[in-house]
């Protein structure tokens, strides 16, 4: 089974979800990596080989490949022989794979938590309805595209690393009706990206706009800072931090909701997290319906005490 993985990279670095996707792809067949943009560094190529990529296919496309139709054409050119294409399930990639499926006739599942081969067909698992249901889907078409969510596969290097061949893919990008007028980069937040973070500490209305404790706690736990829609609407913290159905969907091993009531839109974006901790003044807050450990109280009391105890524990 020939499996191609679309690699996400920023400033030359391979994203952690891409390594997870390569790990998953190894269970389906022999993966090749597809790289859009400026050629990868030797380090990046070595890392892709470490995770099992036998080949790195580079399509040196520019900023106009931000348009889904153009990006899809580049991916199509690089994956002509692939029976399975694996991508990270981001908003941008969902559009690219939709276009790719229109070009190739592939069947698509996005937001998958896993994939395996069953009698020669790819079957995926997803959680839906704010992670209250499990769904298994079979891709019947001859070609399969799977969009996987970050943090659903534990990234692990291949038993023996390979030295991938780097292959340049010539792509003639199609004319499109759309034009990219401008691209204003959003600086990468310090530390881990929200959707990739193994721990997310989120603050909501209960912070009153003061995120210093949330940041401290996130830093201590090696996590990223999230927020509820209320908080981003108030302008307390930027939109990139919003966890929810229409913001970022997160599935960390640990999710800590501080001063977040747990409206259904928020829960839809975090309910599949491993362990859920909630701190809220309101004992009836819906977040407590899904928390593994809930503290009814003020985050301004609870977090500093927890930080102190954990720090003391670590100091031994």
């Amino acid at each position, binding site marked *: 089974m020939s499996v191609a993985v679309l690699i996400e990279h920023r400033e030359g670095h391979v994203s952690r979800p891409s390594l997870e996707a390569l790990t998953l792809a190894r269970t389906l067949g022999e993966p090749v990596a597809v790289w859009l943009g400026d050629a990868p560094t030797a380090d990046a190529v070595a890392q892709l080989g470490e995770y099992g990529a036998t080949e790195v296919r580079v399509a040196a496309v520019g900023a106009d490949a931000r348009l889904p139709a153009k990006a899809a054409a580049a991916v199509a050119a690089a994956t002509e022989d692939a029976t399975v294409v694996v991508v990270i399930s981001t908003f941008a990639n969902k559009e690219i794979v939709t276009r790719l499926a229109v070009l190739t006739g592939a069947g698509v599942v996005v937001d998958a938590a896993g994939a395996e081969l069953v009698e020669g067909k790819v079957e995926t698992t997803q959680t839906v309805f704010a992670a209250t249901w499990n769904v*298994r889907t*079979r891709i*019947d078409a001859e070609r399969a595209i799977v969009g996987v969510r970050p943090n659903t596969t534990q990234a692990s290097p291949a038993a023996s690393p390979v030295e991938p061949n780097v292959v340049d893919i010539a792509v003639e990008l199609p004319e499109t009706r759309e034009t990219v007028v401008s691209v204003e980069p959003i600086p990468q937040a310090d530390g881990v990206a929200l959707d990739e973070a193994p721990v997310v500490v989120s603050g909501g209305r209960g912070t009153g706009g003061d995120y210093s404790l949330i940041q401290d706690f996130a830093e201590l736990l090696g996590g990223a800072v999230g927020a509820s829609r209320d908080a981003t609407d108030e302008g307390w913290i930027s939109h990139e931090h919003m966890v929810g159905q*229409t913001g970022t969907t997160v599935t960390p091993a640990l999710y800590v909701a501080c001063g977040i009531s747990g409206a259904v839109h928020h829960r839809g974006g975090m309910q599949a997290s491993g362990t859920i901790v909630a701190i809220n003044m309101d004992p009836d807050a819906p977040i407590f319906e899904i928390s593994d450990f809930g*503290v009814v109280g003020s985050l301004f009391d609870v977090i*500093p005490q927890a930080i102190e105890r954990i720090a003391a524990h670590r100091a031994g």
Partner: protein
Amino acid sequence: MRILVTVKHTPDLQSNRSFTEGTVTRTAEDGSMNELDENAVEAALQLVEAAGEGEVYALTVGGPDAVAAVRKALQLGAHHAIHVSDAAIAGSDVFGTAKVIAAAVRKVHDEAPLDLVITGMAALDGLTSMLPTALAAELDWSQLTLASGLTVADGEATIVRHLPDARETVSAPLPAVVSVTDEANKPRYPNFKLIMAARKAEVATWSLADLGVDASAVGAGAARTTVVDASERPPRENRVKITDTGEGGNALADFLIEKGLA
């Protein structure tokens, strides 16, 4: 300005959502217009109001209960409603659904040209966000998706889209398929007059034959994927809830340490 808005009948988020034979259970009691489609209706109404002329068509595809979605759009101010319903559509994947919607869009467009199709950013049941792209490809119209801002001038639409790594501005000639996010606007509430009018308003009902779509090209038979199993996840076990009486932070720390999470 002539705009068609696609709206979807989805189960209420607060209801007990479930699957029946591999598809989402939809009932009249627990269903309504997908909340994110309110932003699409609002965007269309605002453009027509700003232009001082024009019409908004609301279109839905689905079984008999789905008509509730277009009635809701009428309550918000849409001028016309279309309900595409045909037993052969059941079980369609996104590509089949896009074919049906595209055929309906063309039927309206052929009567008098449309400028835009506007959709919500996702349906809150499936949340795949794939339909707008599939529809733009099917129609071969401009694709302007995930817009948090939308302007239309001189035969061109321009959107701002907010992705994790960058804010993009993208423009394209009309006609275009635009999907709007929940940040694009603040949807209005239906007013009494429109609620009363929507009750009596005529909803055009079209079948696949009316659209000239071959039944074998859509539905479960043509779908590229099949749901083979759907089951409710077990609730979380051994859940603990304490009230902070001075030791809450310590208890939380102990929990995290014991779990190996801190």
